[in-house]
């Protein structure tokens, strides 16, 4: 299998998935008595300046969330708990930053550190339970999601500051806010400066996974745990560390929005990014570049679907179906492509073997396999 054919194979899958998702969405829209043409026209209309800003901001958070999920996925660890981890982290960080223990920019750093540590600890519970008690991380992180939601709800209703009907944490001081950058007019909003966190995290992710011993061990564990163990990888240590890293990245998810525009944990908190992140990680094959495109696609669909409410009678929830179908279709397509590639490789090997004289023994067959 040449590298080119491999690259084409991995591009075909997402394309097929997007086309399939578009078809199915069109059918759903048509079945509900609306015009699919109208729907796609609205979605693909060039975005307004304000929407561009939102897409960048939103995709940075989706990207971080997907990165958090991806690091686990790369070693077959299913961290379904990104949702709970960033909720805990966002709340605790908001409380600490709101209390303003340290002045100005130092407070921002403190807030980020607290978020990372909280997220890591919350995810670490699942990691430790898996390693010491053999509890499946899928189940424990789902449980921890629910516990996080309830705990934060309890703390908010007990210690939160009442504003009208809602409650929130203390608003952070002016000096600890991180201003954004306005590419268009003032009213079109600003791109949060902390969007850079997402970029840095993506680069770090790529470096650690591809250029370090740890990254190699992690990928090896994901591909074949037995082989990794045989080559001296301590799998249980890897599990705990990856869960901690995954939770740490998850802790950062809401930080750009928090320091850039929300300034307190309350109604401005954006829930649900954890599950979107899982979907985007799958879509992007757990690689930073793929995840980036996935995050932009999802943010684009989310933002453009807001237009549906104004300009048509189509529910904007339809893009949830589109997103779900994209994910399902893409994983199916990857699996089909993988199976076909495996079959093709096997065929190639068999052909080479048959082409050679029978008596040549087992030795030379090794070299043919390498060539194939």
């Amino acid at each position: 299998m040449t590298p080119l054919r491999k690259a084409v194979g991995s591009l075909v899958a997402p394309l097929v998935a997007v086309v399939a998702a578009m078809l199915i969405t069109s059918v759903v829209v048509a079945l509900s008595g609306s015009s699919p043409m109208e729907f796609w026209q609205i979605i693909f209309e060039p975005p307004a300046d304000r929407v561009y800003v939102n897409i960048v901001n939103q995709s940075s958070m989706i990207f971080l969330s997907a990165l958090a999920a991806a690091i686990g996925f790369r070693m077959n660890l299913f961290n379904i708990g990104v949702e709970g981890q960033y909720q805990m982290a966002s709340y605790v960080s908001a409380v600490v930053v709101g209390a303003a223990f340290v002045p100005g920019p130092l407070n921002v750093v403190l807030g980020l550190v607290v978020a990372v540590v909280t997220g890591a600890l919350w995810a670490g519970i699942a990691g430790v339970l898996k390693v010491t008690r053999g509890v499946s991380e899928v189940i424990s992180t789902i449980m921890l999601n629910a516990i996080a939601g309830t705990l934060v709800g309890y703390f908010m209703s007990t210690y939160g500051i009442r504003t009208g009907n809602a409650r929130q944490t203390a608003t952070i001081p002016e000096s600890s806010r991180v201003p954004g950058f306005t590419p268009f007019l003032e009213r079109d909003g600003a791109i949060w400066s902390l969007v850079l966190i997402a970029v840095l995290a993506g680069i770090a992710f790529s470096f650690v996974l591809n250029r370090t011993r740890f990254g190699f061990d992690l990928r090896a564990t994901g591909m074949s745990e037995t082989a990794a163990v045989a080559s001296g990888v301590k799998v249980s240590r890897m599990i705990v560390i990856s869960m901690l890293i995954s939770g740490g990245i998850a802790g950062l998810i809401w930080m750009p929005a928090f320091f850039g525009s929300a300034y307190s944990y309350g109604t401005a908190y954006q829930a649900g990014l954890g599950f979107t992140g899982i979907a985007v990680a799958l879509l992007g094959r757990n690689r930073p570049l793929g995840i980036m495109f996935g995050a932009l696609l999802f943010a684009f669909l989310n933002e453009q679907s807001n237009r549906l409410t104004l300009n048509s009678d189509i529910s904007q929830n339809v893009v949830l179906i589109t997103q779900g179908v994209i994910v399902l279709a893409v994983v199916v397509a990857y699996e089909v492509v993988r199976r076909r590639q495996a079959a093709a490789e096997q065929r190639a090997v068999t052909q080479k073997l048959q082409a050679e004289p029978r008596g040549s023994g087992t030795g030379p067959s090794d070299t043919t396999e390498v060539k194939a």
Partner: protein
Amino acid sequence: MSQTATSTGTPGAAPQEPRAARFSYFWLLLALGAIVTVSAVRLITGQDQLDSSGSLRAAILATCPILMAAIGGMWSERAGVVNIGLEGQMILGTWGAAYFTYYYGPWVGILGAALMGAVGGALHALATVTFGVDHIVSGVAVNIIGLGAAAFLAEAYFTGLPGGGPRQLSGLDRPLSITVPGLADGAESLSDKGWFFVSDVASLVSALSTNLSILTVLVFALVGVSGWVLWRTSFGLRLRSCGENPQASESLGVNVILYKWIAVVVSGALAGVGGGFLALVASSGFVTGQTGGRGYIGLAAMIFGNWRPGGILAGSLMFGYTDSLPLRSADTIHALLLLVAIGLFALAIWRFTRKQTRQAIVFGVIGLLFLVWFLTTDQVPREFTGMTPYIATLLVLAFSAQRLRMPKADGQVYRKGSAG
């Protein structure tokens, strides 16, 4: 290691002794003991709401959706397919129940709920069984699709209907409810007396004989039917064999792919019925996002119940009870602490008699903590009971993971012809 039920009998006992009879005797004693304990706690704390007929009725209503999701999960996982998509299938069920009840009445509504859930199950089966996608991955996608589809369909079909809106549909016909004449009133008045034991049994009788929805009966019947089909028929044996060792089943001529498909579709249908129960019986109509994570609680109940109907029933009842109690009285939750403490002590003693000293000590210490908590405080935050199912499941998984045994090939991708 864990001892299975079959090996607990004394060696001298005649093997012909009907196992079912011994079991029901054990459960009967356990139920009696539980009622006595609850009754004692009620009298000590003075919290009549602990097991008033109203509380029990609410608990049963809260139990049914969880129970259906859990039994659905059991079907799927017994055939070796992990179904994280229960939540999405349940959400589809709430919409199906509302739509079909509105146009065709509650009976068709229940079928509609099952149908929509089954569609969600079929989606999961297509991805996992036919295409060999990872089960967790597919389940996450099914949840996203279920959530989106129900919200979209509600907006498309319920907007403008009388009692309907883009996010809800109320005023639906309810399935028939039955009240046993005579028995219901008598039990109710007896339960109001507050007598030891008698009133507690009367509350239970009253809860079961007053305004009992047919759908509730159906839900409990489905548990029995599921248990019977999976453990007492050859169909069930084959289905479970697909979850234990699909290669072996294949070599014996079982159509593994077909059995897995059936199991996952049934799983979705049952979760859908659970969603339908939420929309038709437990509340007064369809609302978007009505399930509130009950699919996940169902998953927890299934694990808690060790992938078996009896355990799942116990787990669902416990989760349903703790789910419904905060809505009724905050002080009652405080009384619950004492009940939990006593339960943990009982568990500790039971473990001690089995010479599992370490576990006995762990349970004893936790029980002691609960007792201290009970004695030193007056109130427990409402939110804390909401966490009960999740924390209980985590604790059960952490402390008795050895006693739990999931199907051996659960979650593994199976490919036809892999038996070689």
